[in-house]
Structures are given as structure tokens and as C-alpha cells.
């Protein structure tokens, strides 16, 4: 957006890369940009509750960047831009609770690798965003600190588990955010808030300092309003980290360059796009289905070759996921025992065993307890082979299905979620119904492949509908190239990216 001379009041409406451009040219200071977003948070977050904690040191950090820039230092292209950080990530100086009462007030002595990297690039942390407790959920209603609301309609959920990051970005409280995706926690909130989110290839981004839910499924990724912005953040946080054994030691191309090329071309000429039959089935709402068909038409018109592929094992993905995740989580969450950090609940004369059990009873919410018990069951003697062992085999089958599908297609597409955002409380009493909702996003985590959620229009209720793109392992670049092209094609039809259509929120008087 060259030539734009933004007034401070407009700064929050800019895409991240646009704001970064103004910062780099010196037209806007980091203090102004940060203050604008802090003002926006103060104005709207009372209603949305996207943030659990606002960084009191944000303006100091912004000032430091401004001083370095004034001193002529060569800074990263995103330096000075604000970013929101999901509460699952460890941050020095800011509480990191993973949305749980059991970690209330816990301030880690170290930064997650991704946090250290965004800080090193000069981004300014605005605060920590709300999430389902320990990232268990698809609605952010399972946060111990109360739900986050969807900026498009505060009666509705913002998706989950990363509802806070998605809502913050959708409500212009932050241009960039970090999320984590174990079974769709970045892509599904993106879908229901009209934003963009990417789950990188497993191992593409370090998990060090991300409070683990399911170690073999978790990936940290970007949450933004545009594809290019996600790519820019991915470039910052990605790459090998020796602190994470599962981190991939390989050279990655510039995702920002891929996004810029994709947007510039606006073409999908020669790209083979596969529609997974099994993800295009009953359970998907009619309006979501309709937007998906329209999007397929847009892709075809842009030169994509659309084919149908079959992934028969996907039918078992939800079952496998709800064995592997609880099993790993039951073990990962064992460390919350009241001894070294976090909550302690104790009574007179109690043994440490009693204290641990009472603490975990009081400190964990219902969904967390449910999954810990389920995971304990899945791993216990006599059941391991039938449950956990079988689920690991389903993973192999799902990987094989993807391998076969990617023989026929360069990218796979599906709706990112079967419906638009539901109302708060609507599915809270039926955990199974909530679980089944994740079918579109789960296979990518089981197989380790990268995926992106991005807007593809509005549903009959005026709420955002999301598209999911999936690429083969290590081919995250394809998501950005194609995603940016699709975004540009749709923006042309709509006269701007989807979030510009979001209803204005009432700004509270401060």
C-alpha cells in the first residue's frame, strides 16, 4: 500500500506487512504502532477477552526498537511491529498458564524458541492470548479464565484452542499472532474468524518452550489476517533448533517470497488441486459446502486442475487422534504436581500423594481431566496394543493415504471446518460432538504435513467460512504460493480481504 500516509488511528487496520513497511521507512514509530494496538485492546478486549495478559513492558520494548532504528541499526523487516503470543508459549516476564488454573501466575525463567526468535527480530510482544486449557478444545470455552468471543459475533465461539490469537488478529488488536496446532487449533480458529493460520510441517518450527499437549502432534505456527503476514512470521520462527530433537535440520525457502510471487501471479496455472472425497461428505453444512464449490470454481478459472482423491483411512483419524492425544497428554501433564511450580492445594496432615491429587483435582478443568483419564486408560496394561498401538498404525495408514493423494495432486483442499462458528455453550455438554468437528484438520497432524486455513467467504449467518490447504511434508512453500494466489483472487471478487468486512465492534469508553 504505497503512498498511504496512515494516521495513528488507522494503524491497527493495516496488514502486518503494511505496518512493517511504515515502521521500516520511519513514517510510523514502534511506540505509535504499539500504542495503537494497546488502545484497541483496551477498547475491545473487555468484550472479546482475547488476551489473558497484556504486556506492561510493550511500550518499553517498542521504544528500544525505535532507538535502535534511530541509531541507524539495520533491523529485521518486521522490527517494531506488535505481535500477540498464545499463552501456551513460555515467555520470560509474562505469565504462561496454557489457559489453566494449575499454572495461574507462573512466570517461566526462559523464553520458548519461537518467542526468542520474534523478540530477536524486534517484534514487540503485546501480551498472551486466551486458549482452551492446555489447548484441549475447539472453542476456547475450556479456558480456566473464561471464554473468548468471536469478533464477528460475540455470541459465538472464536474456535479453539487458539481462539484468543485468532480473535485478537480478527479484531485488529494485533497484526500478527503466534498459535499452536495439535489437531487444528490454528486452522479452525482461522476458519471461523476469517483469518489466516498455518500449521507448519512437523519439525519445521521448534516446540521448545511450547507447553506440550501431544508431543508428536503439536506444531507452533503463525496467525494473521493475510497469507503474506503468516509467511513473514513463519520465516522468523522456523528453522532448526537444537533444543528440540524433533526439529528438522534443513534449509527452508523464503515463505514470504513464495507468498509475494503467488499474490503477484494470481494464477494457479498447472497446479493440480485434489479434493479429498472423505472430507467432502455429510456433516458439512450447506453454506460451507456452497462456499467451497464456489472457491473450487475460482481455482479452476485460475487454471488449477481439480481432481478428486480418496483417503479411506481418514474415517479413522478422529478415533486415532483421540487415543494418541490423550495418551501423550496424560504423560505430559503429569508434571503439574504442586512440587516445583504452579498451584498447590493442601490440607493439614496430608501426605504429598494427597496434595498432588487434590491439586490436580482443583487445578484441572473437566475437559483436561476427561482426557487425562482417557489417556491413562489407553496406555494402561492390557489395553496398549488394542488402543494406542492400533492408533499408531492408523497413523501409518493415513500417511500412506496422503502419499497416494499427493501422487495425483500438488495440493489438497477441503473446508477448514464443517460449520461456521457455533454459539457459546451450544456443544459444551457433548464432548463427542465437539471431537468429531475436528475431522478436517486432524489428518494433517497425524501425518505431520503442513496445512493452512484461510477465508473463503461468509456463511448464511454472515459468519466466516474457511478453506483448508494441505501440502506434502516439507512443502510448506506451496501453501504460501497457492494461498496468496487464492487470497488475491478472492479479494478481487470481494473488493478486499475478508476481515475488512467484519462488523465494527463497540469500542468501550476508556
Amino acid at each position, binding site marked *: 500500500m504505497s503512498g498511504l500516509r496512515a494516521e495513528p488511528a488507522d494503524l491497527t487496520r493495516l496488514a502486518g506487512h503494511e505496518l512493517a513497511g511504515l515502521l521500516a521507512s520511519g513514517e510510523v514509530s514502534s511506540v505509535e504502532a504499539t500504542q495503537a494496538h494497546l488502545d484497541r485492546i483496551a477498547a475491545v478486549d473487555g468484550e472479546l477477552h482475547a488476551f489473558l495478559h497484556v504486556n506492561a513492558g510493550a511500550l518499553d520494548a517498542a521504544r528500544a526498537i525505535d532507538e535502535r532504528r534511530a541509531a541507524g541499526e539495520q533491523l529485521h523487516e518486521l522490527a517494531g511491529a506488535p505481535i500477540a503470543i498464545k499463552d501456551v508459549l513460555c515467555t520470560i516476564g509474562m505469565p504462561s498458564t496454557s489457559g489453566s488454573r494449575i*499454572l495461574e501466575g507462573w512466570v*517461566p*525463567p526462559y523464553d*520458548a524458541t519461537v518467542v526468542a526468535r520474534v523478540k530477536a527480530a524486534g517484534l514487540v510482544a503485546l501480551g498472551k492470548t486466551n486458549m482452551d486449557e492446555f489447548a484441549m478444545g475447539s472453542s476456547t470455552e475450556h479456558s480456566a479464565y473464561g471464554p473468548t468471543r468471536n469478533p464477528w459475533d460475540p455470541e459465538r465461539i472464536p474456535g479453539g484452542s487458539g481462539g484468543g490469537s485468532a480473535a485478537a488478529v480478527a479484531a485488529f488488536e494485533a497484526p500478527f499472532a503466534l498459535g499452536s496446532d495439535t489437531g487444528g487449533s490454528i486452522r479452525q480458529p482461522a476458519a471461523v474468524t476469517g483469518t489466516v493460520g498455518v500449521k507448519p510441517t512437523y519439525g519445521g518450527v521448534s516446540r*521448545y*518452550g511450547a507447553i506440550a499437549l501431544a508431543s508428536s502432534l503439536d506444531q507452533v505456527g503463525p496467525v494473521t489476517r493475510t497469507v503474506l503476514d503468516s509467511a513473514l512470521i513463519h520465516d522468523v520462527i522456523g528453522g532448526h533448533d537444537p533444543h528440540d530433537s524433533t526439529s528438522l535440520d534443513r534449509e527452508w525457502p523464503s515463505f514470504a517470497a513464495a507468498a509475494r510471487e503467488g499474490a503477484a501471479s494470481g494464477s494457479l496455472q498447472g497446479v493440480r488441486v485434489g479434493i479429498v472425497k472423505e472430507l467432502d461428505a455429510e456433516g458439512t453444512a450447506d453454506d460451507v459446502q456452497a462456499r467451497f464449490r464456489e472457491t473450487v470454481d475460482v481455482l479452476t478459472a485460475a487454471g488449477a486442475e481439480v481432481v478428486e482423491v480418496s483417503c479411506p483411512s481418514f474415517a479413522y483419524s478422529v478415533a486415532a487422534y483421540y487415543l494418541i492425544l490423550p495418551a501423550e497428554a496424560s504423560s505430559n501433564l503429569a*508434571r503439574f504436581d504442586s512440587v*516445583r511450580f504452579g498451584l498447590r492445594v493442601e490440607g493439614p496432615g496430608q501426605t*504429598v500423594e494427597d496434595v498432588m491429587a487434590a491439586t490436580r483435582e482443583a487445578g484441572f478443568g473437566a475437559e483436561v481431566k476427561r482426557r487425562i483419564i482417557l489417556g491413562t486408560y489407553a496406555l*494402561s496394561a492390557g489395553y496398549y496394543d488394542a488402543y494406542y498401538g492400533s492408533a499408531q498404525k492408523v497413523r501409518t495408514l493415513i500417511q500412506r493415504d496422503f502419499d497416494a493423494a499427493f501422487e495425483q495432486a500438488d495440493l489438497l483442499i477441503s473446508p477448514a471446518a464443517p460449520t461456521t462458528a457455533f454459539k457459546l455453550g451450544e456443544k459444551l455438554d457433548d464432548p463427542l460432538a465437539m471431537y468429531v468437528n475436528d475431522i478436517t484438520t486432524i489428518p494433517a497432524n497425524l501425518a505431520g504435513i503442513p496445512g493452512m486455513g484461510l477465508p473463503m467467504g461468509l456463511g448464511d449467518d454472515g459468519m466466516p467460512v474457511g478453506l483448508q490447504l494441505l501440502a506434502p511434508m516439507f512443502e510448506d512453500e506451496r501453501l504460501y504460493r497457492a494461498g496468496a494466489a487464492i487470497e488475491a483472487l478472492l479479494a478481487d471478487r470481494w473488493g478486499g480481504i475478508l476481515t475488512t468486512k467484519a462488523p465494527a465492534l463497540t469500542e468501550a469508553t476508556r
Partner: protein
Amino acid sequence: MKDRLMDFDEALERFEPVMGFEVHVELGTRTKMFSAAPNPAHPDFHDAEPNTLVDPLSLGLPGSLPVVNEQAVRYSIALGLALNCEIATSSRFARKNYFYPDTPKNYQISQYDEPIAFEGSVEVELADGRRVTIPIERAHMEEDAGKLTHVGGATGRIQGAEYSLVDYNRAGVPLVEIVTKPIFGGERSAPEIAKAYVATIRDIVLSLGISEARMERGNLRCDANVSLRPRGQEALGTRTETKNVNSMRSVERAVRYEIQRQAAILAAGGTIVQETRHWHEDTGTTSPGRPKSDADDYRYFPEPDLLPVAPSRELVEELRAQLPEQPVARRRRLKAEWGFADLEFQDVVNGDMLHLVEATVGAGAAPQAARKWWTGEIARVANERGVEASTLVEPAHVAELQRLIDEGTLTDRLARQALEGVMAGEGSPSEVAAARGLQVVTDESALVAAVDEALAAQPDVLQKIRDGKVQAAGAVIGAVMKAMRGQADAARVRAIVLDRAQA
């Protein structure tokens, strides 16, 4: 409650003992098994204050992740090879899940169905020269837990304590757990075999240079499984697992005790409870601990934060080529090199002092001198105090003691006094000698004066010497030594006595 014990010989007549061992070896790498925090089992970090050798992983902080220590893997493979094991082409870590306050993640990263080494054997030699082969089931890598201190209550033990304090310095120390298969046919030598086995593991570990292997420091820990079956019975009896056996001597005693205790129960028609038992060094008994139950459902599963370790065959062969000689071969070589008589050598082996004598010789002492110190004065004190000789004094100090004698700085008697000081923690032999003023009187005129005085005091003895009864000089020498408070060279005094008597 005091256990009823059956006479050992009678127990052996009626029952066959079957043993099994789990030996944990702390590896002396610089850093921990899965993180770069300093390893307290490395000499540089022995005396660290509590909770100073910790990083996020040692405390199990949320978000922390493990990364495998390459040196620990090399050490583990070397140990596996020294135990004549197969080395896995692919080996995996697994989580063992249980809650305990010394376990920071409430799971231990260990190995389950894919250990680094398996199917081996160790040859051990008994005092009478018999050799026994101990079958090894597996050796796997894992991490140690922290340390608890129980406060309040009478005993400092866990029972009756008011609260406990936790130090996580040891959490994450690299361990190799060596598990034997059931050991049959030990018969009345079973207790001796037990001791010889653990001593052999210790010798192997020391010769590989992968651990200091000091039992009293917990570098080497042994759990002993013992069961009995009536003569003629095929099926194995119920076993107990005795923990906390922290010296070679205790290993032997604990096995013997369990044989006698179980035999008494079985003979009286009772049944053995499958349980953990604790060894008490002070009373020489075991007491019941935790019964095995379904609480032992450890829910093992592959550690998702770590990848398989697949040692290349090149690495395995490289490590195999560097293996030191086997303990039995080593013993034979040392015996020949040192020129010890059979009985002398047996004394050293039985006293579990081979490595101590070797280290002392390595520090410069003559083999016979080194042997005499260890099997003589030091063994006597160790026996008196009921501790291991190795805990009393460092081999280097013994060598220094001998050097002081050889140089004529100390007499044997003064050296024993210096040793006493060293064992009391007063410093090195030279430091003790200086601090206590221990030194041979070399002032010739002082000696002559003392001799003249003693001769004058005993004119009858003087006459006898002059009459050619040289052995009578002993009385005068004794008086002179007493007058010099032992700080004189007796041989020199004798020469002076004879010389002055003729004057």
C-alpha cells in the same frame, strides 16, 4: 519385627537359590542424559550445592524438551560391548509413568522394548579360582531421579517424617541399567557370586573409564532379586527385590540373608510375598517395602520427544576396538606383573582391593608396598569401622605415604600416624605430617645424645652388648625410640647404639 532365619547350610540342602540383579551405573559424562546441565556424577561437579545443577528440563518445567547426550550413548554402547551384548541396530526411548516427588516430569525417560544392548554375558571369578558366567538380558539407558531428604521424625527415614526436601541436581544423570537373566546353580556360592558379579561390573565400568563407580556415592547401585525353589521343583519361587544395597559386602550379606529368611518361611509352610525389601547396613537385615501391585502399571509408551538411536556398525566396531581387557584376563595379568604369591593375590581380591592396589601402583608405589597398606592397616581400620576400604583413603594418598617412607621422611610407625590423619580428613599425608609434626629425627647429635643417655641408664644392657650379646640392644633402641616419640629411624638408632656401646 525380627525375621526368623534358617541355618544357611540347611537352607541350601532344602532349597535352590535363584538370583537376578539390576545394577544401575551412573555415567560420568560432563552433562546430563537429556540436557546440558552439569552432571553431579562428573568429578568437576561433585560438591555442588543443592539445586544448582538444574536447567528447565531437570526441573520438568513446562515446555522443556530432552535431547540425547552423544557421549552417554557412546559410553552405553561401550558398556554393552564389554558385557558381550548385541548392540541394537535401532534403539528407542520410552516413558515410564509414575508419580514421585523426586521425578520432575513424573515420568522417567528409559528404554522398554528396544534397549541399546541385549543378550550378553559376564565371566566372574571366585576366590577359589572358579569361573562363573552370568547371563545378561539387557543394558538400557535412562535418567536418574532427584534426591529426597526426610525431615522430622526420629530416624531421618521416610517413615514418620514431617516433610521432605527435594534436590534435583541428580535428576537427569545418565544411567545404564544392567539386567541379568535368572542365575541358576550358584548354590552355596550364591552370595559370593553376587558380590563377585557386582565387583566385576564395577571393574568393567572403571576400566572403560565411564564412571567413578563408587557405591558409597551411588555411582553404582544394586537391586538383588532372590527366590528359592524346593529341590526337585521346576517352577521358580516367588522373588523379592532387595534395594539399597550400597556396598560389595552388603550385596553378599543381603543375598545370604534373603536365602536364610525365605527358607525359614517356606519351611514353615508360609509363602513369600512378592515385594521390594530394603537392606539395612547397620543391622544386616532386610525389611519389607512396597508390595508389587497394579499400582506398578507404568504405562510405557515410545517417548515422542526423542528419536530412535541407531548406532552405525562403524561406531560399534570403533568402540569394540577400544575395549579394555576383560576383568578375568586383567586379574591374571596384574598378578603376574606384580609378582604376588597366590595367597597374597587372593587377599587383595577377597578384600575387593584390586582396583585400589592398581591405582596405588599407578600413582607410583611398589606393588608389594601398595598391597601391604591396603590389606594391612587400611583393611584393619575398615573392618573395625565396618566400612569399605575405598571410602577411607584415596589410592594416590597411599602412594604418597609410601613415597615418604621410601625417602626416609617417615618411618613405618609415623606413616601409620599420618594415615590416621588422612583417614580423619586432615588432608594429604604430607599435610598431615606437617600439621602433626611427624618427621624422622635426622639430627645425628640429638640421636647420639639420646643413645648415650639410654645406655647410661641401663649399664647392665651396655655390658651385655659389650659381651657380644647384640640382641640385647633392643631394650636400648626401644628406650631411644620412646624418647624420640617414635620419630627416629630405628635402623639408624640401632647402628648408633652398637657404635656407642663399643666406644
